[in-house]
């Protein structure tokens, strides 16, 4: 009896030790990263000012800024969002609401899963061969935006499918029973009720795209650009110009990569500052996405 007792005590001790181990590993993982982030912020702090945001790249680290980079990133994100959102949502709707159980559907499903696991640099090679050369888009904002759109397509599709699947079947049945067609059920009910999840997926996809470096290096983004793309708004009719789509560009992660690969410590500081801004942007986007998901989950209680 006493032996059993001792055994129980020992086993309980192991339990406690494991909890301790789990906490240590978890805290260590977060602490290491937190320390690194703080260090990034501290290193970059001297350059985090208005001039940094409004200056072009320069040979002199203390004069260099990220103007071309953040404008480039923003324009690329516009292209990416405009392509990935409709295509991704449409594909997800097809798979969830329309697709019959046949080989075409199976092939689409396999491809979506598979594309999610393809390394991003492969998308870069695809874009280099297809967009830059075969389609003749050149090393342009359009090519970069399309590349990143393809890259985040699986993320948008998976998130949208999950959101759409969360709409209960009885809601769909109610709409069908009133004589709605499949598209009416989708457009009037399924999509509006799952909008929170769809937006969340989109933001998470964009936050991934914003930090992607490898694919746009591959298509040949320049890291030294001292001009801005053609402005999308013009003074004369029709006030909108799409010439910027064909312009050369640089982007935030490219700029950071360029600076981090230079031996001059001054550029390291710039890299840290650019990294802090980039990191802030992705964490902010993810935070918004998580908050949105939480809010929508609370709002609709089926």
């Amino acid at each position, binding site marked *: 009896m006493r032996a059993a007792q001792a055994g129980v005590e020992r086993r309980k001790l192991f339990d406690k030790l494991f909890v301790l181990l789990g906490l240590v*590993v978890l805290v260590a993982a977060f602490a290491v990263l937190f320390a690194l982030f703080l260090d990034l912020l501290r290193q970059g702090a001297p350059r985090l000012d208005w001039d940094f945001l409004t200056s072009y790249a320069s040979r002199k680290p203390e004069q260099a800024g990220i103007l071309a980079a953040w404008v480039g990133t923003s324009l690329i994100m516009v292209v990416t969002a405009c392509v990935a959102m409709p295509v991704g949502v449409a594909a997800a709707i*097809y798979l969830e609401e329309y697709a019959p159980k046949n080989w075409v559907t199976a092939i689409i499903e396999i491809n979506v899963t598979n594309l999610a696991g393809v390394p991003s640099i*492969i998308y870069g090679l695809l874009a280099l*061969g297809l967009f830059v050369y075969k389609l003749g888009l050149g090393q342009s904002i359009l090519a970069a935006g399309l590349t990143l759109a393809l890259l985040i397509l699986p993320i948008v599709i998976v998130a949208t499918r999950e959101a759409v699947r969360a709409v209960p079947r009885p809601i769909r049945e109610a709409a069908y029973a009133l004589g709605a067609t499949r598209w009416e059920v989708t457009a009037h009910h399924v999509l509006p009720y799952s909008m929170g999840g769809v937006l969340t997926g989109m933001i998470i996809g964009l936050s991934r795209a914003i930090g992607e470096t490898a694919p746009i290096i591959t298509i040949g983004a320049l890291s030294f650009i001292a001009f801005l793309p053609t402005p999308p708004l013009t003074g004369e009719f029709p006030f909108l110009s799409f010439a910027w789509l064909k312009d050369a560009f640089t982007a935030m992660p490219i700029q950071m990569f360029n600076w981090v690969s230079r031996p001059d410590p001054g550029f390291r500081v710039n890299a840290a500052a650019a990294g802090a801004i980039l*990191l802030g942007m992705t*964490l902010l986007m993810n935070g918004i996405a*998580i908050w949105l998901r939480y809010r929508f989950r609370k709002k609709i209680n089926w």
Partner: protein
Amino acid sequence: MVTPKSPAPFAKSIRRRRARDRVIESLLLLAGLVAVFTTLAIVWILVAEALPFFSHVPLADFLTDTMWTPLFAEPRYGILPLVAGTLVTTFVALALAIPAGTIIAIYLSEFASHRVRESVKPALEMLGAVPTVVYGYFALVMVTPFLQKLLPGLPGFNMLSAGLVIGIMIVPYVASVSEDAMRAVPNYMREGSYAMGATRLQTATRVVVPGALSGIAAAYILGISRAVGETMVVAVAAGLQPNLTWNPTESAATITSFIVQVSLGDLPHESIGYQSIFAAGLVLLVITLAFNIVGFALTRRFREAY
């Protein structure tokens, strides 16, 4: 009271709505097919651009030559050094990510309270969203100097530092996928174990982990695939010199960092150097594809089990 309806009173409006539905359905199908086109395009582009390379370099040389110097005056095209660099960084990454990820997963799934779990999971998710180039900066500017204090003589570019940072990077992924697998083990299995007098740890290691094994294996394998395909960390921190070595404290290029290095230069389209990155990309695609297929097959088997 009986108001006789004309036959098919809504027929006209229905025909119009049906027609609209059919148009929309084909558009949606087209969007779904984009995924298929993308895969086909990837294979097509990689093969088409690598073919001229292989007409120039015999496949046997490519697979067995121990030197990769495509940009030299006397170029050698052996993929082995790049594969070795990729394998070494991946191995270092896994040596960190698998134990840490598994412990975190077991802790979250079997020990942590609901509240802890609900706040840690989104935090893990956010760590997974950190741009890889930022992780590259960490590896080069912070982790390497730190490691140099422990291992004097460690070069400024080395695979150890890059591998460790990739490991940190994929910990959230490994933890989150394995945790999902463990949570899917039905509760009656745990209860059976508790009823026998087992502690939580015993239940976790003897019931839950074996029960979730294929899911956990899938997490590891998908983690490997990510580590193999990771680009920016190695491009920044591991060095760009192809080097056939199994020693992680040395500097070496990987498949991915070679592609980046060539892309940064200004190689003319149609040159053998340009074609060589597609050959390297093809190798990378084959390796990751193999891991992904095994990983997804395991996840599917796991989902079927419960």
